[in-house]
């Protein structure tokens, strides 16, 4: 989250609503450790990353949805996921993200 602080500050100054996605847990092979963060502004602008690029597109959709509903939650991406998401990690690992509006 430190790495994207400048973007978070800029968006807050501009009055944009922001969703924050953080890696909280990984199983097996995973490119980024817990704490890796990505933020999505309500106009679709993106900062940071949570994987090697495999799931970022899906995270943007989830984040925008969470900004609409305010329903903060865990989202899991994995190779053998239950078809809930059409994307996975090509490395074979599983990552658990927590996505929330940055309203705190």
């Amino acid at each position, binding site marked *: 989250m430190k790495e994207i602080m400048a973007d978070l500050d800029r968006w807050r100054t501009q009055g944009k609503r922001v969703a924050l996605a953080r890696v909280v847990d990984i199983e097996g092979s995973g490119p980024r450790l817990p704490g890796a963060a990505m933020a999505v502004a309500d106009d679709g602008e993106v900062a940071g990353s949570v994987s090697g690029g495999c799931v970022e597109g899906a995270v943007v959709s989830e984040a925008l949805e969470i900004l609409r509903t305010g329903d903060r939650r*865990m989202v899991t991406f994995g190779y053998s996921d239950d078809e809930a998401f059409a994307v996975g990690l090509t490395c074979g690992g599983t990552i658990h993200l927590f996505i929330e509006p940055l309203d705190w």
Partner: protein
Amino acid sequence: MTGSIYETWRAAVTDHRPVSLATVVEGPGTGAKLLVGEGIEPLGTLGDDDLDRVVLRDAVGELAAGTSGVRHYGPHGEAREAAVSVFIETFAPPPQMLVFGAVDFTGALVRVAKVLGYRVTVCDAREVFATTRRFPQADEVVVDWPHRLLARVGDRLGARDAVCVLTHDHKFDVPAIIGALDTEVGYLGAMGSRRTNSERLERLAAEGADMEAVRRRLHAPIGLDLGGRTPEETAIAICAEIIAARTGRTAASLSETTGPIH
């Protein structure tokens, strides 16, 4: 967005003060937060006094260890229950690198170290060389003898930190190395040709350095054997060695090895 937890977190991270941010990620009160750090009152609540108390204790532990992870609790912080999952994320201050010697290689090493997230101090006793103009990316440029700087800041060095001795001048290098061996610094390296290095080892022995500690801890000549010549290539070889020393890996190409990558 008033966000006093965000603002407090932001101020701490900006000032390089360590903090841990606990967030309920599953269970009652999902999204609730508790911020813990040195020199600040715990801020926020996870929604239950007993849960706050237990998570506060665990967050202080994660803070000391510099680690992050998910922990599971009962609704009131009970162990061996899993009604509530809390992600405790620790924001440690950046690791430090002290570079002794304001030489040609120093500028490149400062730049590469900044890419890796180090807070970098350049130190040289020679006033004409140790200037912020020559090392604009350094966080700090100190005109002093290396061993005197180490006497002032050495007790703040730990396993994540690095000391790189680039001076090539025994009268600076030898006390710098002896001073660095007195700290808990995780990486210590000294630049120089094989010949410079053997002379330096003789001087260290003559000055009464703990030669067993020298053999165990001093990386000299500094850097991995990448065969590069430019200051930038040398800086990469040094930083790559620092990473390999920390992880305990062989620094061979992954194509030549087997087993897990991370």
